[in-house]
């Protein structure tokens, strides 16, 4: 177990390193460089002065050399400054990352629980009207565009009924109630959009499991339906569901970006968007690195859960 984790963390570190270089290089390909932007405001600057400044900031150095300088500083915990906000990027990113994790975490837990529950019920009631209604809702969730759903909810719950704030972040003095009120609509949007596909997948996985020989054995043992389901079917059905969930972790973040923008939720999605639109290279770079790192960590967690669910998969070493 320890060796497995060490291997996975090392692997994640290498991925992160490679990705940082790719992002660095891609951002370098964007038109203009930081000095062009800086000097746009001052048309008096002569080409000689520009060349001098470029040399001073090291902007004219080859990309590998600039990347090395950035990397050495980053490894020492110095991720640089934001060009627009004139603050260390870490000070900006940490709260935004926290906000995103709250939003996506709540949506993830709710949608996974809901999807597995609905999928299981649909599988047990296969072919009945209950199954058909769940299927209908799943398809509705899959096909509805999240921006339309978000706007509909804002209109209904914020404008017409006035139950929930239309968007933005809760103030600290509003406490948990304020947090819940502000979270409700963005979380609901994400849950509705994400549950449908997963529920259909969970239904298929459960139908597959219920046809297995060991379920027939469980019935031959005289187990109650409830015990058969909880002790024998559910855990087996969760294995393929977890595989899909792990694959979708990356999408969860990008999916949240649009929702964050819609509800003025101060998360990573919004921050990255603003950084790119505002040519805040360094902030965009570090944001993307943090998102990548989060997804990598989530994947390691999924792997651990996977081996916990399925003893046939060994963590590099035998379990017992």
């Amino acid at each position, binding site marked *: 177990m320890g060796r497995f984790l060490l291997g996975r963390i090392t692997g994640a570190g290498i991925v992160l390193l490679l990705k940082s270089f790719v992002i660095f290089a891609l951002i370098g390909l964007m038109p203009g460089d930081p000095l062009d932007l800086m000097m746009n405001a001052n048309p008096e600057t002569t080409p000689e002065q520009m060349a001098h400044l470029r040399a001073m900031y090291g902007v004219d150095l080859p990309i590998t050399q600039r990347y090395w300088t950035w990397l050495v500083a980053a490894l020492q915990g110095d991720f640089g400054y934001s060009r627009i906000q004139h603050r260390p990027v870490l000070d900006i990113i940490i709260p935004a990352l926290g906000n995103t994790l709250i939003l996506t975490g709540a949506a993830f837990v709710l949608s996974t629980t809901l999807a597995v529950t609905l999928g299981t019920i649909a599988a047990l009631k296969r072919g009945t009207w209950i199954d058909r209604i769940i299927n209908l809702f799943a398809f509705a969730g899959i096909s509805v565009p999240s921006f339309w759903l978000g706007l509909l909810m804002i209109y209904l719950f914020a404008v017409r009924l006035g139950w929930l704030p239309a968007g933005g972040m809760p103030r600290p003095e509003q406490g948990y109630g304020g947090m819940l009120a502000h979270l409700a609509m963005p979380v609901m949007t994400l849950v509705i959009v994400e549950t449908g596909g997963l529920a259909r997948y969970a239904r298929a996985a459960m139908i597959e499991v219920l046809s297995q020989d*060991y379920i027939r*054995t*469980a019935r031959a*043992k005289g*187990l109650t339906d409830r*015990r058969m389901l909880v*002790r024998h079917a559910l855990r*087996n059905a969760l294995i393929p569901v977890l595989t899909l969930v792990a694959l979708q972790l990356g999408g969860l973040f990008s999916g949240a970006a649009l929702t964050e923008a819609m509800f003025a939720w101060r998360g990573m999605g919004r921050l990255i968007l603003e950084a790119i639109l505002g040519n805040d290279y360094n902030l965009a770079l570090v944001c993307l690195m943090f998102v990548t790192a989060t997804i990598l960590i989530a994947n390691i967690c999924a792997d651990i859960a996977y081996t916990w669910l*399925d003893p*046939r998969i060994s963590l590099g070493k035998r379990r017992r």
Partner: protein
Amino acid sequence: MSGSWRITSLRGGRGTASCTDDQRPFRVATALTEPLLVGRALTVDLGPAHDRTSVITGLDFSLAAGRTLGVVGESGCGKSMTALAIMGLAPSPHRIGGVLRFAGQDLLTMPQDRRRQLRGADMAMIFQEPMTALNPVVPVGVQIGEMLIVHDNASETAASRAAVALLERVGIADPARRASAYPHELSGGMRQRVMIAMAIACKPRLLIADEPTTALDVSVQAQILDLLLELQRDTGMAMVFISHNLGVVSAVADDIMVMYAGRAVETGPAQRVLTAPAHPYTAGLIATLPDIGRRQKILPVIEGSPVNPRNRPPGCAFAPRCPLVIAECRTGLPAMVIVSPGQEAACIRCTA
């Protein structure tokens, strides 16, 4: 597959062992006058009402405590469906007709929950493929102990202790360690031993073994058969032993029921059926056994393929393959006739 079985150990004439007494309150009372398991004109139809297929037709059988009924016939003749019907596990939707009684109680009219309580506790079943029949993600000790938790209200610790004892009982070395193993960590023979340990956990009065040795190596098959016989001797449980291989059945059965296309074509004491078969199909099965009858260079098989119960021909279902067929065979369904004491066959050409 397992061509090395010989009819060596015929067991006819064994006395009825007494049933182990049991204190559990919900154990059904046995009517003294009636065998443990009785089927009369049992039929099983599968599929929804508008598209029913009859897979079992008019089956009669009875089985006393401590005795073994061997059910034999080619693949698809309805052996497993008979077993599942007895267990109350026939695939839905289905319709089961006739009479099915167990320990003096009518299984077919019994409430579902009562039927569930009987399963595992009073009648248990083991299956052909122990790899897929065991849950891959649950330790085998837990799967065994669960029986006692569900049927005997045992605590988790008592159940896991009992599981270790049961593993030892079925001949697994180092049972305490094996109890925490997962099915994929065990050999095929050990998995079947685990299945057997699970089945006997609540001391059932009836054990249905559906091809329990078919998926195993030949060397392991004999060990498993010996284990089943030993357990039966110790507990006095009745056994329904199903196999497509008459040789295997002959090693364990007191009585034999030969099935063809969803019907019984011959029943009787094992010794009579094996040494003096009355039905041409039984004779064909015996002829295809190695080392029985005349030596032949090529292993004989019964010509033709078994009919699907879905499109059974009128008259005798075996007629298309029967070496003794005459015109009358194809017109009327042959009734079971007594050919010797306790032996019956459904063939118009066999007379006592």
